[in-house]
């Protein structure tokens, strides 16, 4: 196992200890941190590894949130609803991917962006099932109190993060990851050496949606109420990209660190500049792209990190 991946597992293990040190606020922050890391790591599969700049993360986050939300509202336990949300997201993404990933560059970005809109409207209009614009209430399971609830959801999100990290590492070590890397570098040549690029891209897109959908489901259960504009928010697509850019594309460890750093920035900004927090986020993005295009990783000891960066 590469050093980078090892560090990642250590980092994640470290995060697991959070409940020992924090109260409700720290737990909430920790849960969001795990969620952000899941989104960023998942995006990296299709965006960093395969080289297709997807803006569809929010679409699948919302999809997962609603699938799980509807199932939970009908009495299914969490242990069933989340995996179903994840698997369904995988399938929908893989199918759509076969069509959408034929597009390159800008066109793919736009198409993936539009998915958010389309999914949101579909959910909005399926009022009987989803409550439409009124939102969906998800019942609280018999809970043992606020702290226990908070801890529970933290660990569920954390567990999902661990699963995502394992998936990402498995992909990067596998033939799939190697193939995606080929596709990123030269899709024509990849086809020419016998790689079924459509299949690989679809799987990558599916994997990038799967844990995102799961995270959406956990989010829905955690906050107990979701509505379309809340979960189908374009920011859920853009933030993971910014996190990946902060940390350095392609490296799971970098991307995860990027997620945590981003969350830190977001919290600081939110607490101090609440009225202009999105503006400040914008400034961060602009500065980041102007001065650190290769992410924080490029600031470190270049050679070593570059070797462990890609597949």
């Amino acid at each position: 196992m590469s050093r980078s991946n090892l560090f990642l597992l250590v980092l994640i293990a470290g995060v697991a200890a959070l409940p020992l040190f924090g109260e409700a606020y720290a737990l909430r922050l920790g849960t969001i941190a795990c969620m952000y890391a899941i989104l960023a790591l998942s995006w990296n599969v299709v965006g960093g590894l395969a080289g297709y700049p997807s803006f569809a993360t929010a679409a699948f986050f919302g999809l997962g949130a609603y699938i799980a939300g509807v199932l939970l509202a009908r009495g299914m336990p969490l242990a069933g609803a989340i995996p179903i949300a994840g698997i369904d997201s995988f399938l929908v993404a893989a199918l759509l991917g076969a069509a959408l990933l034929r597009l390159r560059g800008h066109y793919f970005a736009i198409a993936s962006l539009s998915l958010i809109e389309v999914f949101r409207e579909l959910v909005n209009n399926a009022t009987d099932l989803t409550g439409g614009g009124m939102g969906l209430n998800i019942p609280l399971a018999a809970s043992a109190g606020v702290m226990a609830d908070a801890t529970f959801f933290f660990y569920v999100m954390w567990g999902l993060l661990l699963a995502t990290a394992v998936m990402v590492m498995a992909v990067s070590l596998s033939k799939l990851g190697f193939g995606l890397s080929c596709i990123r570098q030269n899709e024509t040549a990849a086809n020419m050496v016998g790689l079924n690029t459509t299949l690989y891209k679809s799987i990558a897109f599916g994997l990038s949606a799967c844990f995102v959908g799961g995270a959406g489901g956990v989010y829905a259960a955690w906050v107990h109420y979701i509505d379309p504009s809340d979960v189908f928010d374009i920011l859920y697509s853009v933030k993971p990209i910014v996190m990946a850019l902060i940390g350095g594309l392609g490296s799971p460890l970098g991307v995860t660190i990027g997620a945590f750093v981003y969350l830190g920035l977001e919290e600081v900004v939110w607490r101090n500049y609440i009225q202009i927090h999105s503006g400040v986020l914008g400034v961060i993005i602009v500065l980041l792209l102007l001065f650190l295009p290769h992410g924080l990783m490029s600031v470190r000891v270049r050679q070593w990190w570059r070797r462990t960066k890609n597949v």
Partner: protein
Amino acid sequence: MLAAQILINALVLGCLYACIAIGFSLVWGVLNVINLIHGSFIVLGAYLAWSLYQGFHISPWYALVIAAPLFFVLGYVIQRVILNRVITAPVLVTLTMTFGLDLILNNAMIYYFKADYRKLSLTPPMGSVSIFDVVVPIDRLVATVAALALTGVLYLILRRLRVGRAIVAVRLDRDAAVLMGVDVNSIYAIAFGLGAALAGCAGVLMALIFPISPLTSTAYLGKAFVVCVLGGLGSVSGALAGGLLLALIEGVGSAMFGPAHATTLSFALLIVFLILRPQGLLGRKGFE
């Protein structure tokens, strides 16, 4: 609804859509940048018109003349100082960059103007005209004519002025343009400035018809996208074709399925076109 009414509505709306999209299309076609600030520029233009009218009773028609150079400079500066540094970077970076810039602008507008909807109501109101059974509000009609005039101005610039020819050259083949001695960086800034000016002017016109709020910027942006994909990038005729097609489909769809689905329809159409005919009705293949 009368078929003729639907058609006329679509015609009017289509020209407005074209006006919204033309600046966006220009920037995408020439700089290969998807300018996510476009929607906010439009809203800013609307605010400008509103402020000028509320504060100084300056009619929106004059506001057009004021808006154009102001927005041109704004766009020119943004491109030259910030955007140009990442102009050669992949889609991901430029898209995220304009997203960040848009966050700044949009947040600034919300902070300054607050998010409530405002309306620019002309006194005295312009009323509407009715031919046979078809009703058209006069302000929309006039705005449509103005929108067409704007697209006409752009067309003339691209056709007749030297700088316009240079812009077209860069759009068709950047490297060849460089070899011909065109200062591409300058052209990029000028094109972006033009795009911003067109957006600002479109915003002035929109102020007459639609309510104004920073929250509407994504709606305008969304329309611009769809129009570009439907009609093809970088050309005035493409924007017109796309605008008319979109308005027609929305109108018919609205009549058949109800107005709530209009947006979904347009985005679903977007995806269909992207998959089947990414260059749009009139566009050239190869703009990635």
